[in-house]
């Protein structure tokens, strides 16, 4: 054994012994207690995914017999003010309540939604301090995160829940709703103002949820004997629609059950779609007998069934498989079923006019002069596609109906008060969009009064870096070293990118016009530009963002996503992502030139570098980066 080998053995042995410290008992339990003080914004979806008609007025009247609650909730939904009381009263104890379901009084039902029991109980106790009577008298207490399921919320407080105190049945009064929030756990309580979020209302026992389309059959129609189960063994999310209305969003390789009471009476039509909106199978359910709809595809089998036990059978003939490969630029739009069973006979004769706009929720929506957006239920077979200049709406995937920015009139009618527009009449283009510019009216457009930083923050604040790595690098030289590409440039465009439906994440791609390449060779589809991917913050509007694109330059430290895929051991993804970049991390990857000084997107990034740089000269920073690249080259030579 050489000296070198011996030294190496000694060092290796020393390192192994350094790591041999005994593991502290209860470490995971402590972490759990800390972690769950703040429930994650996307947690288990215990709320039913099945939607709208499940508790229509008719069904609910029979099911509840609690018209007082209905009245209260109707008030909530119609925007009536919610009551918040300030008079503390006697404080009934929470003693004796099960920890998993902390009840407020012996007769009340507590529904904690996606909030862990401990945090739920703490929130209720906090509410009790100012609303002891209401808590004590409540027939039900509903607690849930204010952030809707399957959504990403950027908000000031990481812990924020709605607490709703439902009065006892038969008591006509105002619903008491409060907002409980804190940095990581419940700390403060304020009265809820405005209407409650839909996902919270859905948790309230017997709540009346606005209906998109009323139940299609007569109230005394028969219902299925067994729930509908969607067993999605494909590797992509599937949406199930019943009579054209979304009933369940089923993640890849997952199973969701729609309870019988949430399914309208027969007859109805079930339809399965991929996230793009492409219909992969449909079936009429004419009676209450068990049924199975089995769809084979190149990415797995989808079963939709209603039976006492899951039906088994041979896999559909692979020759009949649906090809899962889809046009990546397709955009899902809500459409009507092919045969709208039980929907209003004929087509309403109303006409609506508006501008076609891209919409994260509905693919393509209609924007009126009042700046309100309206969901449109497009005719069966309609699709949209991202193309140069914006979205294009297609009829049956072939002929162009209209383009983003076009002003159109659509015959049809409303489905309920402020419900989506049923586009069953003629669709005519009144005026074409100018050039390729999207027609939009930014709701938070930059103003003259705004400073450069403020205007820039407006844009960058809506973008979040994907948390691929938490890694921080302590020096500019290291940031340069780990970057596949370092460029100076300006954002010139932004467009929708991929969607991760399961995580509720929408990505966007920004086009960056390159001013100077400091390191690397840009992988680019268009010479002189690169595409950088970001998460779109929840609620951000792409058309607004386009109008907010800042003029300033920035220094970007980027990872190539194709190379990243390769490094992560996914060679199959390399080709798809080789023209896309992402920041090396969320705080050090983009350094802006704001009036000649350096500004990161997130101010805390300043603390990530040992000597800081906020407010330093941007020109100097760029020179330092150039020097770091040069030094690195010298070292590697």
């Amino acid at each position, binding site marked *: 054994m050489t000296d*070198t080998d011996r*030294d190496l053995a*000694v*060092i*290796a042995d*020393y*390192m*192994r*012994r*350094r*790591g*041999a*410290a*005994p*593991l*502290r008992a209860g*470490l995971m339990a402590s*972490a*759990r207690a800390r*972690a*769950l003080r*703040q429930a*994650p*914004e*996307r*947690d*288990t*979806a215990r709320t039913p995914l099945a939607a709208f008609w499940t508790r229509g007025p008719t069904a609910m009247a029979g099911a509840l017999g609690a018209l007082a609650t209905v009245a209260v909730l109707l008030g909530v939904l119609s925007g009536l003010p919610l009551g918040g009381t300030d008079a503390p009263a006697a404080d009934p104890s929470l003693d004796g309540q099960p920890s998993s379901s902390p009840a407020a009084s012996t007769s009340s039902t507590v529904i904690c939604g996606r909030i*862990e029991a401990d945090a739920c109980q703490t929130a209720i106790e906090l509410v009790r301090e100012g609303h002891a009577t209401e808590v004590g008298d409540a027939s039900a207490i509903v607690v849930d995160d204010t952030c809707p399921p399957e959504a990403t919320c950027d908000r000031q407080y990481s812990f924020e829940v709605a607490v709703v105190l439902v009065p006892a049945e038969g008591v006509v009064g105002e619903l008491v709703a409060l907002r409980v929030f804190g940095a990581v756990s419940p700390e403060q309580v304020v009265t809820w103002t405005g209407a409650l979020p839909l996902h919270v209302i859905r948790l309230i026992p017997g709540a009346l949820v606005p209906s998109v389309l009323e139940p299609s059959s007569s109230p005394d129609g028969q219902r299925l004997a067994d729930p509908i189960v969607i*067993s999605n*063994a494909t*590797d992509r999310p599937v949406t199930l629609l019943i009579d054209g209305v979304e009933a369940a969003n089923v993640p*890849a*390789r*997952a199973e969701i059950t729609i309870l019988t009471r949430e399914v309208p009476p027969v007859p109805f039509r079930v339809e399965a779609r991929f996230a793009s909106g492409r219909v992969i199978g449909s079936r009429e359910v004419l009676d209450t007998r068990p049924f199975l709809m089995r769809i084979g595809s190149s*990415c*797995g*089998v989808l*079963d939709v069934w209603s039976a006492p036990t*899951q*039906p*088994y059978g041979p*896999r559909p003939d*692979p020759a009949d498989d649906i090809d899962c490969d889809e046009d990546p630029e397709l955009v899902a739009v809500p459409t009507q079923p092919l045969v709208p069973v039980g929907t209003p006979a004929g087509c309403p004769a109303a006409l609506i006019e508006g501008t076609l706009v891209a919409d994260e929720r509905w693919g393509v929506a209609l924007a009126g002069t009042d700046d309100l957006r309206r969901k449109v239920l497009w005719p069966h077979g309609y699709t949209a596609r991202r193309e140069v200049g914006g979205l294009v709406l297609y009829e049956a995937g072939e002929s162009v109906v209209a383009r983003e920015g076009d002003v159109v009139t659509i015959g049809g009618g409303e489905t309920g008060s402020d419900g989506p527009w049923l586009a069953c009449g003629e669709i005519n283009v009144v005026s074409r969009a100018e050039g390729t510019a999207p027609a939009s009216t930014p709701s938070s457009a930059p103003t003259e009064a705004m400073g450069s930083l403020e205007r820039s923050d407006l844009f960058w604040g809506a973008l979040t870096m*994907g*948390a691929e*790595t*938490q*890694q*921080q690098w*302590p020096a500019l030289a*290291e940031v340069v*070293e*780990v970057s596949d590409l370092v460029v100076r440039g300006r954002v010139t465009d932004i467009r929708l990118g991929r969607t*991760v439906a399961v995580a509720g*994440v929408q990505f966007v791609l920004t086009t960056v016009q390159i001013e100077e390449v400091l390191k690397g060779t840009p992988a680019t589809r268009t010479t002189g530009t690169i595409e950088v991917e970001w998460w779109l913050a929840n609620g951000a509007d792409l058309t607004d963002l386009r109008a907010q694109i800042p003029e300033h330059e920035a220094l970007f430290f980027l990872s190539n996503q194709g190379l990243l895929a390769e*490094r*992560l*051991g996914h060679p199959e993804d390399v080709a798809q992502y080789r023209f896309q970049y992402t920041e*090396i991390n969320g705080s050090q990857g983009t350094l802006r030139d704001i009036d000649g000084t350096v500004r990161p997107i997130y101010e805390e990034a300043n603390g990530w570098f040992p000597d800081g740089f906020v407010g330093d000269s941007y020109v100097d920073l760029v020179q330092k980066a150039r020097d770091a690249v040069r030094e690195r080259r010298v070292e590697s030579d």
Partner: protein
Amino acid sequence: MAVEAGEVARDRSRPVWSEFEARATSRLPECHRLAAAIVGPDDAADVVQDALVEAWRALAGLRDPNAFEPWLRSIVVNRCRNHLRGRGRRVRTIQLDAAASIAGEDTGSVRLAADQSDRLERAFHRLSPDHRAVLALRFTLDLPVRDVALTLGVPEGTVKSRLNAAITRLRSALKEGST
């Protein structure tokens, strides 16, 4: 893909603590060894606990579930870095008794091992967090260079150069004692 309906997985693909805990628990000893090697046994548990909380909160952003292990390790390393940066310089003493218990009963070899251990310990504490991290990942966890690079998010060449630099410094410390 021929998957029968009966084989449908029940994976809801959402952050659920029990699922996270199951995955993280299986990596807990490794994470603790890693942290102990980088920051020392006294602070390892706190660092790992911080890392677990951070990982849970960032879990929704983990795009590739198969990358969980390197991702979790990278968070532990990151927390170690922050910890070391925040801790600043601290005087460390080496317990001869502890070194003796590792090295064996023989008095001569105890003294040699204690000296070696002491020198290595001093040299190790002069290393940067990044150098400590590569040593810990490579030798404490016995990871191949490729996985070390994956964890740190740096090229393999960088790992090799850091390893080389760190080992050279520790070797120098060993040599100093033997001359």
